[in-house]
């Protein structure tokens, strides 16, 4: 990462820590109510800290390009996931400390007897818990992705508002008018973000529609979807980046899915190559040309353009993970990039190798070495088979392997094996790039 990016990253991390700590620091300033016992006050402070972290959660998934740029948006989502666990632990601890230390203060659980603000707190706690559980175990719980997204946004917002109500209702620490105003503004600004992401942004996307111009079948049960802008200039992306695609639906319905661009960056073409793997991707083959589409992007820091001084690149792709690599290779070919490229292409069967023919053609236009690795090779196969491990990498990587930039895109286990293999060959971690797409 360049130095300026490191500084920018550090600033954003500092801002995050400040936002988490801010409510507690505000509580400690001005006239503070007298102490009410160590555990009581500890519990209350944990509640406020948990709320601060939960508030920032809304900002983390608002896809602010500027904030995401130094890290990559995939890692911001990963951050969102881990931070949710810590925040949930804090608000649970807030409840448990009182539950253990002073159960009488919690009053009746029955909402008909309990004051509304205590019920609001309980509802918030249960909802936060359910939001985390349904996110960590969406697939085992068989919750469809689109439904999950809708539920996630609605439940998280409801939980947050209920928790704000709980704090306002109890109202002890925010007794001073200015503290009340500050706290209310602070919390509601996070909810304002939801309005921005779910209403303002889709509304802006409505005025920038796209149209499907072509649906091309590829090898390996994949399809390439070509899009053209309707009444606007389109978008410029860097090779390796991705966008959130909404097909044949209103952008307000939050039925968007992230896909890597597979077309060359400077070509003016916007294409995605999508393998039929999930509920949505299985329907891509039935999309008709002329279908309306919306696009939020580009996003991502996975790409050769971030390393203009690199002496060469190694791409290691598994299955449809070839899509961003194709974008980078096509772009390099169009730009006349003379640097050496190595493409290690992992697939189950020879017939499944997406872009097999075009990769072969690209060899003539680039200094490109291609290594196909098959898990299930045909009987007459003389090439590589099995895993992309350190032995295989050692056989094919050039001697200056430690100075090259590595891009990995494929199934999780493959990325893990490859990453370990590269590390054992002495490739510095900072030169190994991959995106964590499997978010929920």
């Amino acid at each position: 990462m360049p130095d300026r990016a490191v500084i920018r990253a550090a600033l954003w991390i500092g801002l995050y820590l400040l936002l988490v700590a801010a409510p507690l620091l505000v509580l400690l300033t001005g006239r503070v109510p007298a102490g009410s016992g160590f555990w009581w006050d500890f519990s209350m402070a944990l509640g406020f800290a948990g709320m601060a972290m939960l508030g920032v959660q809304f900002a983390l998934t608002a896809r602010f390009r500027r904030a995401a740029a130094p890290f990559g948006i995939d890692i911001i989502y990963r951050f969102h996931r881990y931070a949710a666990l810590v925040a949930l632990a804090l608000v649970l601890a807030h409840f448990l400390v009182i539950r253990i230390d002073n159960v009488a203060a919690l009053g009746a659980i029955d909402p008909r007897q309990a004051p509304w603000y205590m019920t609001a707190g309980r509802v918030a706690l249960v909802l936060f818990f359910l939001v985390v559980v349904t996110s960590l175990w969406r697939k085992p719980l068989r919750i469809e992705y689109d439904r999950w997204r809708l539920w996630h946004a609605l439940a998280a917002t409801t939980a947050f508002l209920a928790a704000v109500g709980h704090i306002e209702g109890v109202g002890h620490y925010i007794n001073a008018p200015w503290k009340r105003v500050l706290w209310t503004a602070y919390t509601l600004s996070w909810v304002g973000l939801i309005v921005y992401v779910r209403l303002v942004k889709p509304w802006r996307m409505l005025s920038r529609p796209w149209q499907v111009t072509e649906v091309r079948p590829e090898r390996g049960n994949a399809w390439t979807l070509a899009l053209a802008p309707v009444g606007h200039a389109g978008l410029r992306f860097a090779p390796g980046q991705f966008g959130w695609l909404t097909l044949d639906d209103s952008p307000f319905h939050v039925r968007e899915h992230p896909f890597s661009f597979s077309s060359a960056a400077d070509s003016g073409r916007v294409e995605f190559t999508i393998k039929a793997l999930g509920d949505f991707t299985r329907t891509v083959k039935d999309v008709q040309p002329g279908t309306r589409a919306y696009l939020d992007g580009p996003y991502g820091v996975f790409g050769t353009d971030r390393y203009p001084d690199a002496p060469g690149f190694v791409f290691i792709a598994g299955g449809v993970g070839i899509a961003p690599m194709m974008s980078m290779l096509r772009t390099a070919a169009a730009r006349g990039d003379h640097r050496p490229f190595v493409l290690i292409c992992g697939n189950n069967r020879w017939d499944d190798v997406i872009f097999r023919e075009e990769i072969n053609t690209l060899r003539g236009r680039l200094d490109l070495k291609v290594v196909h690795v098959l898990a299930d090779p045909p009987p007459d196969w003389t090439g590589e088979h099995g895993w992309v491990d350190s032995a295989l990498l050692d056989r094919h990587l050039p001697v200056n392997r430690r100075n090259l930039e590595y891009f990995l895109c494929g199934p999780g286990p493959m990325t893990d094996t490859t990453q370990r293999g590269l590390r054992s060959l002495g490739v510095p971690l900072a030169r190994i790039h991959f995106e964590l797409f499997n978010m929920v």
Partner: protein
Amino acid sequence: MRETWVRIIVAASGVLAVLLALAFAWLQNPGAAGQRVGAAAVEMSALALTGRKIYQAEGCPLCHAIAGEGNPRYPLDGVGDRLEALELRDWILATGAVATLLPRRAAIMKEDYRDLGADEIDALVAYLSGLRASDGGATP
């Protein structure tokens, strides 16, 4: 590597939050970590015992503590020493001079207790009148 950094930063945020919470609790309660007033076994009249049941049933511990049980913001230990029966009645129902002394939020909550029967209020007053500092409850 990026994911490791994420874990480190998130964990650091969690630790920072807990440390700040501890600092807050410690600053608010210097030298009194975890101390609490012990409950003393006191002989109670039948009326006061009924009052105690009403006190619990009406959710009074949400805002008040007796012998450390309940919300420690507004302890009632020794309230029997400080207030006469009529004053106690005013404080329970937010009537008389008390109505102007209480924060609005509290007054609204207390107005609900006007639905209680006269005998129930009497029982509550009897229970609270019996809360003496000498019983082991500290006067705040």
